[in-house]
């Protein structure tokens, strides 16, 4: 679990610190305030790969060098520091003219972070698996978050999904919910990628008495995946919103999320290409993941998503949400943050401000110069 991040002279940030909850963290703010940069910074530092390559691969600075990531007008070295829940740190720093960044980390067993970019990736998997595109071509087309995620999704599941659902009480809540939301599950068998319609249903057994069944249910789940006949469809033919939720199912399936992991899920604009009707289910899925110990940090522009978190949070179930609003200081234009645990205290709220601008325009249209 990541407890906080501090950035100095890096990308959009002159100096910024954020403290995270182990539950859900929601970052909002106007464009160019650096929401995505925070997600990528956490990802880069949590990753075990070479930090310079990772920063360049994720951020793709215009000149291809680290100097492109140095904060314009900064003084001294650029640095990113993350702290984990046990008070251990990972630190990276570089000077404005340095070609490589230094990284030191005392964080152990943090697990491979998962970063879901705004771009949908499930449909890219067959091409990446078949290696029809070279590494260089992929790197020219996508940043590392897309490529890393594809490799993560293509890794072999560490067991059968139904078995996992039944043996791990925590997954018994999450997976059937995800599958129900999209009406099926994504499967990768060898080089075959498909979406299979169906749902998890509770198994009934004539050999088990109701009392035995109740006892058994308290210890483990008893689900089976009921597949619709001849329902396999191509992943590309599936709605993009479904593919995004399918990502979570596949990541749990491959063991990248939830299954005893302490890693972090970073999700950039979960709402992109998502039907607003699915938003409630998406939020329920994310809350269910955090109830299973998954720390999540999302960046969003979406009012409906934000409100669903506010409405569905259940403190009795241990839900904890922190809202982080990034904004530009009017004096020197530097990015600052306001953090709150109460949605209604969230100010400035760039998302609600968008609705406010609509009100402003209506007043201008209807009332002209009256009162101005």
């Amino acid at each position, binding site marked *: 679990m990541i407890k906080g991040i501090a950035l100095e002279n890096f990308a959009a940030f002159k100096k910024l610190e954020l403290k995270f909850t182990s539950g859900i963290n929601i970052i909002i703010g106007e464009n160019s305030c650096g929401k995505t940069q925070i997600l990528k910074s956490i990802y880069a530092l949590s990753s075990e790969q070479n930090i310079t390559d990772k920063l360049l691969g994720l951020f793709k600075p215009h000149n291809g060098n680290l100097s492109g990531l140095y904060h314009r007008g900064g003084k001294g070295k650029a640095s990113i520091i993350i702290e984990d829940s046990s008070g251990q740190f990972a630190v990276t720093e570089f000077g404005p003219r340095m070609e490589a960044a230094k990284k030191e980390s005392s964080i152990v067993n943090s697990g491979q972070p998962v970063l879901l970019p705004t771009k949908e990736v499930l449909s890219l998997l067959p091409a990446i698996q078949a290696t029809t595109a070279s590494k260089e071509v992929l790197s020219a087309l996508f940043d590392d978050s897309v490529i890393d995620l594809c490799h993560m999704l293509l890794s072999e599941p560490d067991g059968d999904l139904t078995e996992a659902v039944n043996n791990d009480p925590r997954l018994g809540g999450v997976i059937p919910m995800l599958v129900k939301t999209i009406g099926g599950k994504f499967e990768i068998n060898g080089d075959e990628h498909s979406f299979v319609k169906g749902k998890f249903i509770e198994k009934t057994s004539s050999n088990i008495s109701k009392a035995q069944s109740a006892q058994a249910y308290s210890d483990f789940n008893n689900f089976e995946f009921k597949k619709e006949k001849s329902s396999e469809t191509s992943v590309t033919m599936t709605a993009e919103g479904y593919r995004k939720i399918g990502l979570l199912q596949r990541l749990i399936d491959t063991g990248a999320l939830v299954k005893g992991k302490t890693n972090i899920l970073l999700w950039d604009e979960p709402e992109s290409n998502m039907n607003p009707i699915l938003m*409630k289910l998406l939020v329920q899925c994310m809350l269910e993941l955090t109830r299973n110990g998954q720390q999540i940090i999302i960046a969003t522009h979406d*009012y*409906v998503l934000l*409100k*669903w978190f*506010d*409405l*569905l949070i259940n403190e009795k179930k241990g839900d904890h949400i922190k809202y982080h609003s990034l904004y530009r200081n009017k004096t020197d234009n530097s990015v600052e943050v306001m953090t709150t645990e109460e949605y*209604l205290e969230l100010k400035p*709220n760039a998302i*609600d*401000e968008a*609705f*406010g601008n*609509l*009100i*402003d325009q*209506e*007043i201008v249209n*209807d*009332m002209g110069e*009256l*009162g*101005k």
Partner: protein
Amino acid sequence: MIHVETDGFRFEFDSAIEAFVFDEKDKTKSTFHGMPMKGVDVVAEFEEAYVYIEIKEYNDDRASKYDINNSSSQTELEQKKECFKWLKDYLKYKFRDSYLYRHAEGKVDKPIHYICLLTFDNALNSKFSKSLKQELPVGSKSIRWNISLAKSCQVLNLERWNQCFPKWPVSKIA
């Protein structure tokens, strides 16, 4: 500049011809309402228009009762729809009764703008504004009408009010 204080708010109207507490309950005042009709809180007259103002202040918890954009269950949605409808009707009939009263006063000779000052966020205020506009209604909605009841209807919070109407600043009074 005319000052009006009502329901815990203080308004200042620059360039107003007249501005007063419309639903005045004090019998000693010349603006005493005195009729069994609903009334908006404030009416202000300007050279080019009348402005009706209705204030409804809710604390944050109560505000979510009306938020039909977001409900966690069908039952909750139904309850919220009821609350939303109640408040929308309340605001609608306040306007209509006020219009009738002003008609009897012979004071409907200019366009009328109706502004509701609610303590909701901008998103929820937009939703109320849309519904209220449809039902007041705003504009000449009937083919038999020659004039409209309301020229416009706006629903906004205190912060937005002060941004949109710098000549009519409003503040909370302790």
